[in-house]
């Protein structure tokens, strides 16, 4: 269980994925915030300064890669984990090159998602 002060921003256009990730993370002690697209994610990042962002790639309005770039422009130390469907790993690797900390593949295994978030938060001071 994690301290409740650790903030995670979950970004996904699919309500089901937001609800699912939020439930898992809040049950494990994280404070969770949600955004439905990349543009909202950038706004909420600046407003909330979350410790970690879980970012879907394919979204309307602004996709995950564009949102990653915008967030890193404002905070080069942002910890963004990309969330990708099978078959999109090449895009996820592109995101890693652009500064994302990690990526997780859907369907999520809860323990893998939690480990990725924990790993990202473990170097919060950097």
């Amino acid at each position: 269980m994690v301290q409740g002060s650790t903030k995670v921003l979950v970004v996904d256009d699919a309500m089901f994925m937001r609800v699912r990730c939020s439930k898992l993370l809040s049950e494990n002690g994280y404070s969770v915030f949600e955004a439905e697209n990349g543009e909202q994610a950038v706004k909420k990042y600046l407003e909330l300064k979350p410790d970690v962002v879980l970012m879907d790639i394919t979204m309307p309005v602004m996709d995950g890669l564009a949102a990653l770039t915008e967030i890193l422009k404002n905070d080069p130390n942002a910890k963004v984990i990309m969330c990708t469907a099978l078959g999109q790993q090449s895009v996820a690797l592109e995101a890693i090159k652009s500064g994302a900390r990690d990526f997780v593949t859907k369907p999520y295994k809860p323990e893998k998602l939690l480990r990725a978030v924990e790993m990202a938060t473990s170097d919060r001071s950097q």
Partner: protein
Amino acid sequence: MDVRFLNPFISAAYNVLLEEAGVTAKRGEVKVDEFYYTSEEITVLIGVTGSVRGLVLYGLSQGTAIRLVSTILGKKIPYFDSLVESGIAELGNEIAGGATSELEANGYPCRISPPTVLLGKGVIISTVNIKGVTVPLETEFGPIQIVIALREESSER
């Protein structure tokens, strides 16, 4: 239809249902459906483009959809709502994503469209010149029909 395009979708459906909902699916008798399919209460449509192209459909009842999403989220959902709709679309997306990943590994790179959900039973859907195969899956939450209508891009219709 080429069995090389069929099996990735069946195995991906097994995997996703097992991993997400802990459900073991049992395959029924595969049917060749020609060019038309009649929708179930909920039908998820996903387009495939690339070296393999066409349409994949998943049909199920509202009850099956509610039971599946309730199980995955670990909470009882009383009726079909936008959360269940989103969950079923995501499951369809994950199955198609897993299948196309396998197709790509087998030398058939392709992409999938975002899922579309058709609400309403009895609508006739044409796959237009691409013959579909229906794979019925039996699960403890109810039956799920998967219709796979794909062809290799360069092949003759």
